[in-house]
């Protein structure tokens, strides 16, 4: 189990999480990504990221709100294929916008 960065990070990208992660498992590509991503294979579940995120965007995998469960897949996917992860993120955000959910 790891932590997951969900929708409230999108277009906010505060970066406090990056500063506190002891194993440097939170990444993003400047200019190309709209959020940060947690590598589930590296996360040691210390919870530091979640405790400092000013946007309340980070959840333990088991506690991710159901509307944002896709973000668990997106975070993991980004560390295997960034293009696919970005594509799916775009679709998830479009679906959320279509459903009238505020994004970003």
């Amino acid at each position, binding site marked *: 189990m*790891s932590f997951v960065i969900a929708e409230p990070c999108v277009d906010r990208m505060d970066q406090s999480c990056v500063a506190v992660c002891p194993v440097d498992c939170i990444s993003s590509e400047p200019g190309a990504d709209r959020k940060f991503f947690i590598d589930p294979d590296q996360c040691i579940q210390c919870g530091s990221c979640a405790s400092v995120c000013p946007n309340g965007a980070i959840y333990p995998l088991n506690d991710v709100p159901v509307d944002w469960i896709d973000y668990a897949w997106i975070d993991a996917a980004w560390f*295997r294929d960034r293009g696919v992860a970005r594509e799916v993120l775009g679709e998830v955000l479009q679906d959320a916008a279509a459903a009238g959910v505020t994004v970003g």
Partner: protein
Amino acid sequence: MSVFEQPTLSPVGPPPASAPASQPLPRSAPAPNATLATRVELTESMAIFGIVLDSPMIGFKPGQYVSLGLARDDGLLQRAYSIVALGADGFRVELFIRRVPDGALSPVLWTLEPGARVRLGPPKGLFVLDADDPRPRVFIGTGTGLAPLLAMLGELAARGDGAPNVLIHGVSYRTELAYAERVESWLGGGLDLWYIPAVSRPDDSRNSGWTGTTGRADAVLARVLGEDRSLAAGVAYMCGNPSMIEACSAVLTEGGMAASDVRSERFHTPAAGAPVLRQM
């Protein structure tokens, strides 16, 4: 300080040159960068680890933690620990660690011999001392939660700080009252510090003969705030388990301390069976 020769570690091979896109992106496997020099066992489940880095740590602020990792056959196993002290030369790191019975890493740490090679990450964390704040400081640590507070108090002692400080170290058993001598040496050196070691289980046979303060950290804190009302205008630094921090935060804010002046670091214990960290 003498350390043994470095043991041979299983190297983590590079990713195949033609890795398909669905494979993890190539990442450099962090190599061991430090050597275990000493392990002083305080109790069956608490020990002080002295680790010597190959090159000095840069940018450490008292209160921060570091990841400690061991190379395993299937990757690097890591956990985060607060730093008790960093040597003046930046090479020697001291950690105060509790052995978690079902933990992934800590039981292994108890089996290491001096000379074992380990991996230390960079210092991290926002729970840091504001040494220039002249207000009174209340430090509260339970168990090994004392660790980052010691780094902060060591910094204050070295600076010749003049603000009043209180340190409550809460433990279950008196044998867990680590670092009393070091704290008392700071008192002798002129640090303005009210040091309150406290045991929470005074009736346990392991605490027989204890004549000092008793009670849980939040109850001790309430008595301290009652005795010195000026502390409520100060700042608090707390480290330990989440329930202690919640209880003490409530005592502090009800006592008049601003919530923004209550700073804390929570020690989490990952669920049993936590995934082993893999560095591909």
